[in-house]
């Protein structure tokens, strides 16, 4: 028989404590606003936890579910009404306590990446997935995942070399 409810609660909270930062970052990259990211994240975590038999699921499955739920939300929202597309006004990335400090330019450059490059970069750098796992999560070939990762780095490097741009951030569409 399964663990007791208190044990289950502990493992759920423990899993959230370990992984929710990474999952929230990916949810933000797949949605248009913070509220959508929260909704998509909660739905995806609950769904994957349940499907895994009430234990921590594979990260690749969680990323794939977040992506699917974000697409569903995007389509339903677009059918209902085209909302004002606003960029995130919060930083997605942070520095550890012992780090040199927050790098807003790099954060902004990551947010400005095209979505198909940004999602690969996020799950690779902060999700720690292999290209094979990324291929499963994002439903693309592993070679494509690897090349998109290199393109993402190219984009970032060029963006960091350019003088600061004061244009409003572009919308982030899944």
């Amino acid at each position, binding site marked *: 028989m*399964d663990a007791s409810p208190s044990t289950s609660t502990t493992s759920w909270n423990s899993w959230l404590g370990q992984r929710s930062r990474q999952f929230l970052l990916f949810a933000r990259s797949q949605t248009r606003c913070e509220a959508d990211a929260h909704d998509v994240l909660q739905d995806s975590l609950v769904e994957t936890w349940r499907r895994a038999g009430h234990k921590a699921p594979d990260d690749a499955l969680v990323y794939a579910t977040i992506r699917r739920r974000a697409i569903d939300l995007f389509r339903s929202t677009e059918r209902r009404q085209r909302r004002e597309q606003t960029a995130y006004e*919060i930083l997605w*990335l*942070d520095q*550890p306590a012992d780090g040199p400090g927050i790098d807003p330019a790099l954060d902004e450059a990551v947010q400005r990446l095209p979505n198909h490059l940004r999602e690969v970069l996020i799950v690779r750098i902060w999700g720690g997935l292999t290209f094979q796992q990324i291929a499963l999560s994002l439903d693309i070939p592993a070679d494509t995942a690897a090349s998109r990762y*290199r393109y993402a*780095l190219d984009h970032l490097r060029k963006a960091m070399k350019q003088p600061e741009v004061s244009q409003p951030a572009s919308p982030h569409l899944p």
Partner: protein
Amino acid sequence: MNIEDDELERRLQALQPAAVPEALTARLQHARPKRPHWWYLAAAMAAVAVLFLRFPPHTETVSAPIPPPAVATETPVESLEDLRVFLPIEQTSTLVKVEKVGVLETDPERPIQLMRTFWVDDVTYRGDDGVSTFQRQESRTEIIPVALQTY
């Protein structure tokens, strides 16, 4: 992968995803999917068992086949305990009387005579035990159209 990429990767890896807002953390912790504990299931099964014992299914209505009404009315032994089924195995129809009803001339060249006939039917039934039989006799009338010969 060149040196610049390695440097950029190091800068990226030095960062970490921003912390989850406290309100969202509380919301996620509260949203933990719950599943019924095993003794919830056991309690539900026990409740079903109690109901089953307290209100057992009516065995008579479930197990007793209902014989055909026509047979049942003529069955010699009409006891409720008699569960035999009787099926017709032989029928003899005897024409006892014929009456002329009239002539229909819907088509003048082919008139039709309507005849009322009176029959007595003797039907023999055999039970599904292979031994018992009984006979039923009843009368019936039937109107038969007959083509008239005209010259």
